């Protein structure tokens, strides 16, 4: 175990040398200046999950890092004026564009963009005397442009939270009231097509059972499938957008969603039969009735909303 550390160090040194050789502009950086950053990224994305990660995998990980972007950022951190000028020149438009899409108006976007550059430059000073810049958090794994967009988006969320803190209490009150109304609505749906109270009651029980079972099986889904369900149903994203998050094509996301729906139905049916004592016929009928009920519910909701 003791011999593992020098091995890792040697591996990281070699990987850093390859990264420098790969960069089109290494900005006069040395291996020594790169190794701590590479080591941090390896620790964060590989060793934290598996301390015994094979060396080949570590080498591959480093070889896939964004060599030019990482060299640029480290050079900026080290006070290279040329690198800083390049950073500003290349990414001003990216930062401004991200700020614009995260802001309500042009002034707010401009403020946000300026805040980002201040954060990147690092107006505060660390213990070692270096500026406390956000640049220290760029690992080089993803693109620098993507990282900058993420920084802008996060800062925009923080700014929004701070601004809305004052009115949060009022909003909460409103949301609570809306939630109560919704619960009342769920409990006593106003449905034009429901013929008698008994049927309405049985429907409500069926709905409740089914909803509980569905909630349970959704929670038991594999993370990737659960994420797709959340992206599509909870966040109302389109399949193309959900696919982009998962790194798959829209068609793949669509097929995957169909499979999940079929899988969920099987699991809900199993729970209703095994745990609630329903028969197969009852579950089939209830699925159809509940769906019809929800369909009518949605239609009436749309009518009342319009």
């Amino acid at each position, binding site marked *: 175990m003791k011999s593992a550390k020098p091995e890792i160090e040697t591996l990281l040194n070699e990987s850093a040398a390859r990264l420098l050789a790969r960069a089109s502009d290494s900005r006069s950086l040395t291996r020594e200046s790169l190794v701590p950053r590479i080591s941090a990224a390896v620790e964060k994305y590989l060793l934290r999950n598996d301390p015994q990660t094979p060396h080949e995998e570590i080498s591959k990980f480093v070889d896939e890092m964004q060599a030019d972007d990482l060299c640029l950022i480290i050079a900026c951190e080290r006070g290279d004026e040329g690198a800083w000028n390049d950073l500003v020149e290349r990414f001003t*438009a990216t930062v401004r564009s991200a700020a614009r899409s995260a802001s309500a108006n042009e002034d707010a976007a401009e403020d946000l963009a300026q805040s980002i550059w201040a954060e990147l430059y690092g107006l505060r000073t660390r213990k070692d005397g270096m500026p406390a810049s956000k640049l220290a958090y760029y690992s080089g794994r*993803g693109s620098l442009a993507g990282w900058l967009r993420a920084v802008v988006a996060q800062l925009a969320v923080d700014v929004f939270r701070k601004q809305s803190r004052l009115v949060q209490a009022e909003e909460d009150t409103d949301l609570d009231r809306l939630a109560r109304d919704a619960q009342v609505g769920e409990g006593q749906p106003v449905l034009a097509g429901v013929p008698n109270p008994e049927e309405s009651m049985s429907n409500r029980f069926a709905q409740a059972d089914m909803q509980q079972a569905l909630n349970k099986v*959704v929670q038991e889904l594999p993370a990737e499938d659960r994420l797709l369900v*959340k992206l599509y149903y909870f966040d109302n994203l389109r399949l193309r957008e959900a696919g982009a998050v998962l790194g798959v094509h829209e068609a793949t996301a669509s097929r995957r969603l169909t499979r999940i729906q079929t899988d969920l139905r099987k699991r809900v049916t199993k729970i209703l039969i095994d745990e609630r004592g329903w028969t197969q016929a009852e579950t089939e009928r209830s699925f159809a009735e509940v*769906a019809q009920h929800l369909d009518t519910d949605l239609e009436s909701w749309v009518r009342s909303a319009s």
Partner: protein
Amino acid sequence: MGQETNKEMDLLLQRLSRSASDSSNDGNHLDADELSSYAENALPGAARARYTEHLAECASCRKLVAQLASSGAVVSATETARVSEASALRKFLASLFSPMVLRYAVPALGLIVVAVIGLTVLRRNERADSVAQLTEQEQRKATSAQPEQAPSQSPSAGLSDNQQEEAPAVSAASRPERAKETQPAPPPNQSPSVSATADVNQAAAPTTTGAAQRAANEPVAPKPTPADEEKQKKVESEARRQEVQGRAESEVSKERATDAAKVEDRRSDDNFARPPAPASRSIASLHRNAIEEKDKSDADTRSVAGRRFRRERGIWIDTAYDSSRSTVNLTRGSEQYRALVADEPAIKTIAEQLDGEIIIVWKGHAYRIR
């Protein structure tokens, strides 16, 4: 049945999304590096799985990742377009062989090919006629210049009377076309050969070339007499001598050819006295072309918003641009472009006034705008 069951589940899941909410994550959200790396699908499997677990339960991180993944897709759209160019080419090639094209365009193409072949054959015949006329003129000159030489069978003896009679008319009719052919300004180094031919063929020279002369000599001399051969040698040696002379000499020989043409009979005057004119016209056109070239080069330089641009290989390049300098590449209408012109409206003015690709040097930076 499958669609129906999926619709039922679809409705149930929609209902679930309205009633359920994601649990909070105690403030342990993904950082910017994790978010962007996840959105770019740049994480190792195990790390990605860990973050997927978090995202499935954290609405705020999910929202950011979705936003980043979408903007990343927009950024890479240009690359996708570049990649799809090959498929666009394939599509275009496939469209060439579509049924509609095969039904209408192929017969039309066939007709065009037939017409072109017909025209080519016709023009070849015209050239043969003019060659016959040239050899006839040569014979006449030889006879008049060397009266003591016994009349012998001329190289044009192989041609029928009918051809000889038709030749002038055809030549006269086809003159404008040939004038056009010679119009593309024979370069100076070709002039000696033209003048050499002119010496031999008198005024006919500018309308034919050395190749045409060889064509005239080879097929139409079935029975060359020794006298003819001697004359031919003399002509050839004269031609070779003339070919090594410079441009000024060629001008002189052209004038001589023109003078010689004046003493020819009426028919040869009609047919060949004028050809030097196209030659002189071609010199004039050379001069004119040179002026046009100058004008064109002026037209290839423009001043916009106080900057001068020259056009090179279809790109408007700022005269202040140094090719060793790196450029920031932008596409018109892109986010980056809009951001730039918002700051620097003058760049927008330039980009609007100059079509196509532009390289602008602005405040110490070079921008390449497509």
